[in-house]
């Protein structure tokens, strides 16, 4: 058991926690706009955390750079995807959920 493995383990655990959080948010929140929040934030951070953990775990090599590339790609693509979905819902005029309304399951 090396210090590197411990750091990697902690980062992976944090990532898993955020993934579970994202899933919970996706199931609990009331409408499509608020569901975008856990998807864009928790999944991005969870994914990046697990990937960085694996980078620490594997040590430096070309594969580490590949993982870094995936991290950068994940950051750009998840933000853009969240925006694209939100925009399509907004342009289509889906009403947003206000306080006091019934939850839309």
């Amino acid at each position: 058991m090396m210090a590197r493995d411990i750091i990697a383990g902690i980062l992976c655990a944090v990532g898993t926690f955020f993934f579970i959080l994202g899933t919970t948010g996706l199931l609990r929140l009331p409408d499509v706009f608020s569901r975008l929040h856990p998807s864009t934030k928790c999944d991005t951070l969870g994914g990046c955390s697990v990937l960085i953990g694996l980078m620490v775990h594997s040590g430096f090599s070309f594969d580490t750079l590949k993982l870094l590339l995936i991290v950068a790609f994940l950051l750009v693509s998840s933000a853009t995807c969240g925006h694209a979905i939100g925009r399509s819902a907004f342009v289509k005029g889906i009403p947003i959920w206000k306080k006091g309304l019934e939850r839309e399951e």
Partner: protein
Amino acid sequence: MHTSEGSIFYRKIILAAVLFLFWIVLTSTLVPVNIVLGAICSAFTASVSAAILGRVLDPQITLGVILRLPIFAVRLGWEIVKANYDVAKIIINPKLPIDPRITEYRTYLPGDLPKTVFANSITLTPGTVTLKIEDDKLYVHCLAAHHEEGLHEGKLERMVAYLFGVRKDA
């Protein structure tokens, strides 16, 4: 965006160089055959994508932007961590204390690229998602009231302005 033939050519070469680095990372070997293939492929990709997309590398990417990028990335990373802590608190709370609203925000950032970076940073940070962008007006969905206030403080905008070296009154 006044670009002469020469500067387009230089930007094509820079794009090809970036793609070549990407190729080296992908193939993860330094065999001569691979390097030759990579040089051919990246040059070909640069010219083809310039022809298909109709433009090469945004002219707003300067050396200064690339140098300031790591600082920006670290600050943005910290903001993302804070954002997640915030959203986590809301989701775990059994009462689900949310009060969603859509707010408008006017940005002074010029050009498409800074606006895009700004909008994507908004999407990644506390309880806000950019829904639509019209010229310099952004429609932002906020999860709760304090997120809206946080957005209007303009901290993120200052960060992006720092990245692209933009002054507010410029």
